[in-house]
């Protein structure tokens, strides 16, 4: 059985700076034990938990960086896709506009031609109408002259025509004829 006895300092041998004996070996063994205890304590209490904490945080940050990179890659893909779509839309718009321009030009050309033709027909119809109107007015004027001449003859026969009366009737008839001509 082990016996443990502790003596006070007074009983302890004189100190020394350096020695190579059994006590040195014992000191080394004690210090080795102390070192192992300290190493285990520091490792378990501080070093490994701190490293674990740092590792977890690094992993967390790395994970967030990866997520951000993935999101950025997706966003870039979306941007590229939208740019492609916008480009396609622009090309489509240009195509539609070009077609519309061509179509509008063709339609305007056709409308212009139709309008010209219609105007020409309207003008032609107007000329024909004018010609007919002119003919009708000439006929009316002729009939009116005949009517005036008949009226004059009737008055001449109804009154005893003297020179003065004849002159007056003539002047009136001429005036009526001039008025009729001016109206036409």
């Amino acid at each position, binding site marked *: 059985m*082990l016996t443990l006895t502790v003596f006070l*300092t007074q009983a302890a041998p004189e100190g020394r700076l350096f020695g190579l004996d059994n*006590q040195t070996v014992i*000191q080394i063994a004690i210090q080795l034990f102390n070192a192992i205890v300290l190493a285990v304590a520091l490792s378990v*209490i501080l070093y490994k938990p701190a490293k674990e904490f740092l590792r977890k945080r690094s992993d*967390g940050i790395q994970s967030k960086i990866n997520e951000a990179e993935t999101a950025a890659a997706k966003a870039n893909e979306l941007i590229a896709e939208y740019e492609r779509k916008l480009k396609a839309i622009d090309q489509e718009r240009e195509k539609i506009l070009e077609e519309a321009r061509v179509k509008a030009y063709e339609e305007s050309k056709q409308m212009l031609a139709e309008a010209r033709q219609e105007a020409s027909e309207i003008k032609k119809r107007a000329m024909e109408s004018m010609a007919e109107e002119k003919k009708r007015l000439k006929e009316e004027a002729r009939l009116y002259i005949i009517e005036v001449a008949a009226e004059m003859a009737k008055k001449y026969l109804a009154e005893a025509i003297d020179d003065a009366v004849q002159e007056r009737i003539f002047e009136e008839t001429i005036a009526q004829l001039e008025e009729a001509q001016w109206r036409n």
Partner: protein
Amino acid sequence: MDLNIKNLWVVYIGGVEIWITETIVNTWIIMAILILLAVIARIRMTRFSLVPRGFQNVIETVVELFDNFAAGALGSSLSYIAPWFFMVFAFILSSSLFSVFGLRAPTADWATTFTLAFATFILMLFMGFRHRKGGYLKSFFGPHPIFFPLNLIGELAKPVSLSFRLFGNMLSGTIILAIYYQLTPWLMQIGIPALMHAFFDVVIGALQTYIFVFISFMYIRGAAADN
């Protein structure tokens, strides 16, 4: 200032006399402080946010810097042993820093530095055989079997040189300061020793911590990496 490492108690376990030295007690003090800080950090870690601030920044910077250092020096395939060297780094640096407050650095005791160097040596052998298997053993006989004794001595010298380098550097600061305190009048012991402590304990301590851990990494990488 006494250069000797005091024996505070003597303990008998199973009839074996064990000296509880100043180094061991100081090691326990440093261990307790480091473990307490680790517990505080662990408790605070439950409230760590995505965006680090204040204390979280300190913890993250320390762990991340060391992890990157280990991964860079050892390579990613060997960096799983980084927790051990995190302890080595924290312990050596704390030993130097606490000596500013008058606590004799445990690293100014060869037993401590040899312990750490011996652990590096064991890890070097383990990693060499684990990663290179027979190739590592074969490397002791290269370029010709006649070189085996030289290679063996070379390998065995590694923990010795590693331990004495750290021990020597840490002890030198202690000795220089002790001599300074012995030889100078009391007026010269105001202010100036603080600068000397800052240099030997903080600057040299940090530098030696880096050197010890870096050389350990190189030894292990040299043993484990297939050249």
